[in-house]
């Protein structure tokens, strides 16, 4: 039996849409720590404690992975973070 192409799957795989992506926030000496934590709470719905923990990780380690999931949603989150002038990027999450 001839095999059938599965273009939808191929397209998804090519674009990496089925693999998890990380949203990373990078350190920035100008943005206020309290402002960064506020934006984390608003964009991701984090609790005050979780927002502060990520903010401090950014401050001390230079970056923090704040969210992992589909590429489409990761792009949306990065756009929201850029709208608040936070330095954010998306990157493929390392495969386990």
């Amino acid at each position, binding site marked *: 039996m001839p095999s059938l192409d599965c273009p939808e799957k191929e397209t998804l795989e090519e674009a990496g849409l089925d693999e998890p992506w990380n949203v990373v926030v990078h350190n920035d*000496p100008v*943005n*206020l720590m309290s*402002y960064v934590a506020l934006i984390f709470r608003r964009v991701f719905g984090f609790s005050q404690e979780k927002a502060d923990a990520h903010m401090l990780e950014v401050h001390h380690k230079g970056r923090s992975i704040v969210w992992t999931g589909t590429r489409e949603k990761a792009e949306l989150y990065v756009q929201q973070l*850029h709208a608040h002038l936070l330095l954010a990027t*998306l*990157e493929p999450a390392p495969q386990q």
Partner: protein
Amino acid sequence: MKLHAADDGALLLEEVPPFLFRLLGEIAVRAASDHPRVEARFFPDPASDDELIEDWKSLVQPELQVLFQSARETVQADLRGASEHKKGVSMRIPKTHGDAWMSALNQARLAIAEESGFREKDMAAEVAPDPDDPRAMALFQLGFYGFLQECLVRMQDKTS
């Protein structure tokens, strides 16, 4: 200068000295800098993927430009509503304008820091305003905007 919250959630600024009010009037100007480093900071690449960067520049960047411009216009409109008194200038930042002010202040701070090449250690220093020293003036302006932004963040914290 006195700052306090009104019953309706607005931030009231009273007895603002003319010098500080002039700095408030510069928020939109500083934020609208066309310095290449400022542009790079306002519109950073979202990833290392060239295709995504191209799409971002054509689709996302124009939206962000409109958003940033809108925040600056809100600030300018509020400043036009200020009134002068014997003890200084009074004005109010309505609760619904808090986000626009935080954005415009953030834009101005980032633009000043990029234009002046400030690093973390520069910003940690306490600086008095000195009209004859542009770098000291820029640092003072950065600190003053940061103070006001911090007040707005705390007000958001209290009401959220």
